[in-house]
């Protein structure tokens, strides 16, 4: 009964989406306020209906109703409650329902928080959201209905893939989708603006918070996924350039570019058509990610059970929505009137450089991810593109980016003073050189260590340059300390958010550099009592025993870790054998001191003799990756609390007047 209710609610939601995607659009064209205002109740109705449906599926999982195929295939009575709930989105159908639920949540948020939007823009934006929602509702109803029944119902379910039974991964998909789907807002705003034929500073101001919100969630989602891969896959790696990782990384890169170019539109009325294109492409890449994961065109560890008919449907959806938007772009964008001119060396110039590098990076990842598809289609054979390609192309793009991130915020709008900015960044350059030299000498001064030392130099450059910029803003040491404190308190939240996010990037650069250059690993067979030394730490294997968990049995190993005889940590990794479905997983044991991780994995008993296969890793600065991602997300949230986003957006005319007299360094 509950499942049928959920199904019925989805059908109704589809009906409402037809209304939402047409009536307000016609209303906006005719200037009919009543028709335009229909968008609001329609999006509320959709939210309630889809919410009901999601609630119905969640209920079926919670009570383990195995007469629903989806529950029978993906859940099990033995499963802890957390994984019964996360099982809702641990499969294709349920995750699609989550996708739609988040989509309508964003729509209803616009209906509520967008009261100060011009009615026509709001109506059109919600209509476009309605079209996307309608398309996905049709997709779920026709090819992926999560409410199908099974008769007779089995006694118990198949269980959730044990790799996914993990707290980090339980929250990874919702975060990721809040990001992916959030970019639909930027897309809908862009299409609405193209229909209207008007893009101005006010438009950019309305789009930015939605983009920022999506970007922040996506940052968290990617970080959670990476963290999960790090401790669950048991290879001590945190990024594999796997197609599905790339699928989430591409919208992030494009979204980052969009955040920055929207600033230029808002402050200087330039880069308009480019920003519109980025908004379309960012969501397009989110759709592409969804397509790649679900179509089976590319196989990956993360891939859902793939099905060509579903693939065809998403392709159709992508073709209509993206193709339509791009066509509209081709027709309307040439007529968008650009505003402010600027010199190459200026805030706009540096943001444009950011955009070019980010866009190139996105294209690179896209090419690497899709190359196997192209090669196969052109009969060049079946190939895979691995980390060497991505590292070789991606890293060189990030170097100028990080350098520019240092001085970009120091430049003023329109025409910047590079010499002045550089002279104010003497401290940063000095610190970077010092870090480079120190890292090189400490590593032994060999030619091989130059690259890693350069990476540390870059991280320090960005760190110090960002702090110098902050210090200048608050006039640290130039004004009395109390005055600096007052200035800090009055600092626009958006500016402080940028500082935090850029600091986060510095941490990530340092973490990536250290983790790729100085990771140490040791794989061996050990018997109880044996000790090995990795990176100056002595790991003593104290043996292993069999333990029983709620829905698995495991081999649990014990390591005592000491350094120079002093006890440091006790590591107890497990190798689990889940019962439903049968599958082994690795639970690495990780000890962190905030700078580096000690990472131990226990494997199977040695077949030819006594002892166990063990793997020990020393992972320097990997925690910095999590600090960095955390700082970035924090920066996003802080920036969202900026007054400008809360105070009613000014009317278009006022904004235009304000931008004409834009002051430097007020981003």
């Amino acid at each position: 009964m509950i499942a049928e209710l959920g199904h019925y609610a989805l059908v109704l939601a589809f009906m409402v989406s037809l209304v939402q995607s047409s009536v307000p659009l016609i209303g906006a064209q005719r200037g009919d306020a009543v028709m335009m205002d229909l968008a609001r109740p329609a999006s509320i109705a959709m939210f309630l209906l889809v919410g009901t449906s999601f609630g119905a599926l969640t209920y079926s999982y919670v009570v383990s109703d195995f007469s629903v195929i989806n529950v029978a295939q993906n859940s099990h009575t033995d499963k802890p409650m957390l994984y019964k709930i996360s099982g809702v989105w641990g499969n294709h159908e349920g995750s699609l329902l989550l996708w739609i639920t988040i989509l309508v949540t964003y729509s209803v948020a616009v209906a509520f928080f967008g009261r100060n939007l011009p009615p026509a823009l709001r109506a059109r934006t919600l209509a476009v959201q309605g079209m996307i929602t309608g398309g996905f509702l049709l997709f779920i109803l026709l090819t992926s209905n999560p409410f199908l029944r099974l008769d007779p119902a089995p006694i118990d379910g198949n269980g959730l893939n044990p790799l996914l039974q993990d707290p980090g991964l339980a929250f990874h998909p919702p975060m990721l989708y809040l990001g992916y789907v959030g970019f639909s807002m930027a897309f809908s705003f862009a299409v609405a603006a193209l229909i209207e034929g008007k893009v101005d500073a006010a438009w950019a101001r309305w789009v930015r918070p939605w983009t920022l919100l999506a970007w922040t969630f996506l940052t968290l989602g990617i970080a959670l996924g990476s963290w999960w891969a790090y401790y669950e896959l048991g290879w001590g790696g945190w990024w594999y350039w796997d197609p599905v990782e790339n699928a989430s990384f591409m919208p992030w890169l494009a979204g980052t570019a969009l955040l920055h170019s929207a600033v230029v539109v808002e402050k200087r009325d330039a880069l308009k058509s480019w920003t519109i294109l980025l908004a379309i492409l960012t969501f397009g890449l989110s759709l592409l990610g969804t397509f790649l994961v679900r179509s089976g065109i590319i196989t990956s560890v993360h891939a859902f059970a793939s099905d060509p008919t579903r693939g065809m449907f998403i392709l159709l959806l992508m073709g209509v929505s993206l193709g339509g938007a791009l066509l509209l772009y081709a027709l309307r964008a040439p007529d968008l009137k650009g505003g402010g001119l600027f010199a190459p060396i200026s805030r706009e110039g540096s943001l444009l450089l950011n955009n070019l590098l980010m866009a190139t990076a996105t294209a690179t990842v896209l090419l690497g991810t899709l190359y196997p598809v192209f090669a196969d289609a052109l009969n060049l054979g079946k190939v895979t593109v691995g980390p060497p390609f991505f590292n070789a192309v991606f890293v060189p793009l990030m170097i100028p980016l990080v350098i520019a991130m240092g001085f970009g915020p120091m430049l003023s709008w329109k025409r910047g003073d590079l010499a002045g900015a550089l002279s104010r960044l003497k401290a940063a350059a000095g610190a970077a050189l010092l870090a480079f030299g120190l890292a090189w000498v400490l590593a032994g001064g060999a030619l091989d260590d130059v690259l890693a030392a350069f990476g540390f130099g870059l991280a320090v450059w960005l760190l110090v340059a960002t702090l110098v910029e902050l210090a200048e803003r608050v006039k640290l040491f130039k004004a009395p300390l109390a005055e600096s404190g007052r200035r800090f308190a009055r600092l626009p939240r958006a500016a402080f958010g940028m500082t935090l996010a850029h600091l986060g990037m510095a941490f990530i650069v340092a973490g990536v550099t250290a983790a790729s250059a100085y990771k140490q690993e040791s794989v061996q067979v050990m018997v109880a009592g044996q000790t090995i030394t990795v990176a100056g730490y002595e790991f003593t294997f104290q043996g292993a025993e069999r333990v029983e968990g709620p829905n698995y049995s495991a081999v649990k190993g014990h390591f005592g870790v000491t350094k120079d005889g002093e006890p440091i940590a006790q590591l107890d990794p497990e190798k689990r054998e889940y019962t439903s479905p049968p599958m082994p997983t690795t639970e690495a044991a990780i000890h962190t001191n905030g700078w580096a991780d000690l990472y131990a994995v226990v494997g199977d008993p040695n077949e030819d003799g006594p002892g166990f296969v063990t793997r020990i890793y020393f992972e320097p600065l990997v925690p910095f990756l999590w600090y960095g991602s955390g700082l970035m997300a924090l920066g996003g949230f802080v920036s969202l609390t900026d007054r400008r986003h809360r105070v009613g957006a000014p009317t278009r005319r006022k904004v235009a007047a304000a931008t004409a007299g834009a002051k430097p360094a007020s981003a």
Partner: protein
Amino acid sequence: MSETNTQTADAPQQEPKGSGWGKRLVFIAPTLVFLVLIGFFVKQLGENPAELPSVLIDRPVPEFALEPLPGRGKPLTSESLKGDVSLVNIFGSWCVACQVEHPFLMQIKESGFVPIHGIDWREKDPRDGMRWLQKYGDPYDHVGLDPDSKVAVDFGVTGAPETFVVDKQGVIRYKHIGPVNAEVWEKTLKPLIEKLRTS
């Protein structure tokens, strides 16, 4: 920076509307690129990669003897394929899709329905495959190491994972490209194995 110049050209203040095809083309380019992309996807979706024929279907497996995995024993030779219907699975620790199908192979092994033999293909280090099996479980009966594709070429392997169905006489009867999953197993492999057993 020439990029900036294109930008200033892109944002002129008094330029007449839609000046020339060159400028229009810039705005049409994204649509064109997108159409090409869609074309590729359609082609790839239409073509089911799992149905490529093997050159060796219905021919006996060539004579071979592969080295065992270090510390595992039970090497794969052409002799180990005779006597019962069996599956020969091409895998490698470097192969991501193999990881996807692995739990399902473990399920087949648990069921004891058919023996699965493995060819550990193109390992850089002969110990990698063994470590991989230790990590994810070992569904195989006999496993041979084939770092230089000596035997893989004879089987007509195009990529990993691939799974061959070999009959009692050691003749290759079917080749499945890509991960084996419940659907492939129920619809194709299992019925075929049952048929080969009775014939």
